[in-house]
């Protein structure tokens, strides 16, 4: 089969690799009909995520048709149309039973390696680093889904791939980012990053009833999309973010702040961003300009929600401000299964159509070129869907 494989920094290729097969009685094999490039795939592409090996199949946002199931999988049948969450969950461990699917205690076979870095293991992820299991990803024609009797979401034929594909990652991720802000009707929610997750977080915050949603980015086309979703926009190339946020909140600061950027924060000619770039090149720190700004501007007793991906250490974090302002920090990979039923229902009801975010649809073979286009934000690229 054809699949997009990692071969090093800035080197993704469309290779021919062996077809996957059932390895465990609970497995299923999915023929991928649509998959997407996620913003967190760019961390692999840019070489900032440790634990990648040459030849790894990438991609963790995908859906398709079940073509084979293991003998112990009694939930899926051949022919079922499913969206597969990017976090692999066993559904049986203590964390899964509590609904903390992204920290499943059994789905990461490389738990010892990860525990050395993080203290404890988290769930296995598709198409990501070997620290999270090294499972082959979904930017391929076929993919093996472990614990397939727990995660995959059966979707009705009445909805298109484009409408439901993002249930596997960015929609629940944006939703969880907003939900864990515990949004009140009087709240101002500030969202850093108008990429795909930021766009979903904007819509989620609006649906959850935020009084005011503000989005911070620098690309006019992304800000236009954010504005269409109901956000007030701040272009950080043109305006001072802190001043503008204070102006929009009567100098009180936003009560809720969401970091939809993560470890590769871009900032224009600020001293701290140049410092971050130098330290990141030496693997000493992620780029944390957004975190610093959030902590600084958030209203005291507010909430910081961090769906943006970080990989290692952060430097010069103003923890004094965080502590003295009494801020609450909520973060984590998305507990996808916790939200999918509710979100699928909302899509079926027509409350939201997540396909609005798709800007490019190309065959799988054009994937390597689209990684570059997406990374460089060329051609108005916000979300790429690949068709194997």
């Amino acid at each position, binding site marked *: 089969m054809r699949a997009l494989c990692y071969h090093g920094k800035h080197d993704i290729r469309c290779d021919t690799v062996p077809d996957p097969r059932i390895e465990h009685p609970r497995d299923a094999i999915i023929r991928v009909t649509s998959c997407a490039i996620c913003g967190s795939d760019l961390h692999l592409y840019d070489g900032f995520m440790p634990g990648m090996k040459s030849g790894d199949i990438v991609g963790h946002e995908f859906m398709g048709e079940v073509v084979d199931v293991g003998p112990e999988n009694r939930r899926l049948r051949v022919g079922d149309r499913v969206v597969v969450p990017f976090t692999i969950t066993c559904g049986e461990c203590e964390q899964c039973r509590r609904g903390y699917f992204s920290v499943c205690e059994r789905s990461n076979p490389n738990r010892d390696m990860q525990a050395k870095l993080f203290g404890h293991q988290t769930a296995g992820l598709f198409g990501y680093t070997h620290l999270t299991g090294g499972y082959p990803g979904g930017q391929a024609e076929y993919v093996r889904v472990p614990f397939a009797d727990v995660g995959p979401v059966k979707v009705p034929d009445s909805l298109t791939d484009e409408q439901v594909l993002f249930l596997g990652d960015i929609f629940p991720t944006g939703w969880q980012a907003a939900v864990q802000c*515990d949004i009140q009707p009087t709240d101002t929610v500030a969202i850093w990053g108008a990429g795909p997750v930021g766009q979903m977080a904007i819509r989620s915050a609006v649906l959850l009833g935020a009084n005011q949603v503000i989005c911070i980015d620098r690309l006019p086309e992304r800000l236009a999309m954010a504005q269409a*979703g109901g956000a007030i926009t701040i272009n950080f190339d043109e305006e001072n973010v802190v001043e503008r946020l204070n102006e929009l909140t009567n100098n009180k600061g936003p009560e809720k702040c969401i970091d939809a950027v993560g470890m590769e924060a871009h900032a224009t000619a600020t001293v701290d961003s140049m410092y971050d770039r130098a330290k990141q090149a030496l693997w000493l720190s992620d780029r944390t300009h957004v975190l610093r700004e959030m902590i600084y501007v958030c209203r005291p007793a507010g909430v910081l929600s961090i769906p943006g991906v970080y990989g290692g250490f952060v430097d010069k974090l103003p923890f004094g401000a965080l502590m003295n302002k009494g801020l609450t920090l909520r973060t984590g990979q998305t507990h996808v299964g916790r939200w999918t039923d509710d979100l699928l229902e909302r899509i079926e009801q*027509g409350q939201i159509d997540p396909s609005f975010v798709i800007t*490019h*649809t190309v065959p799988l073979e054009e994937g390597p070129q689209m990684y570059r286009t997406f990374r460089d934000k060329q051609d108005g690229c916000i979300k790429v869907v690949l068709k194997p």
Partner: protein
Amino acid sequence: MSEQFRGAPRPRRGLSPERVATGLAWFTIGLGLAELLAPRAVGRLAGTRGKDDVIRAFGVREIANGLCLLAAQNKAPWLWARIGGDGLDLATLATDYTDENPGRERVLYSMAAVAGVTLLDAYAAQGLSRERREQTELVNALLLDYGRRSGFPEHVEMLRGAAADAPVPADMRQPPALQPWPDTPRAVSDRTGVPVPGPEFAKPRSEGPQPRPYSAASATTQTSQSEEADASSGAPVTSAPIADSLSSAGRG
């Protein structure tokens, strides 16, 4: 679905205007330094006579232009400025293209060299201006398209709060004891004098596990027992004195 934008802009064959512009910037800085530091040698090479001060001034102009060209995000205006400067160079050289000048031939070569550089300037300036125009057109088209992509079936204001009833898990809510107090009704604590919420806010707390009465003698045991009870019931941990003051406020 709205129109989709496909594929990255194709890389141009040969030298891109951007690369030519960068090369010209370094060339002009080098030439400018030579003109500023060794005007006589430059003049001799170009076949001119007695123009040291003019050559020095031209050197300053070249260095300033080169630095601006390197630093500017939009390089096209600086390249057009270079073409103006090239015209000035040609006019100055032309004044030395006389029968009396023994370096007349050198002046001719110099004028040909300046004309060649002018062609490069024009190529880069035109190319960058065209790229900028195309970029502006693309961004305008994107703004028009993306500005209509709300993802909602109705106007955004019709849907604000449509999911306010969505289940927010208890572990993602602010713990009840730390939730902001409502503005009204208000009361004042008998013991501390601080403003506290009225009975409406205190009421739901009585539905949870009741705090044990606090006594200094059994404080250690009490706390650990209380924590155990709270952990097993999954309820938020509340220390007895705080709960006591809140219920007292409720009475107030």
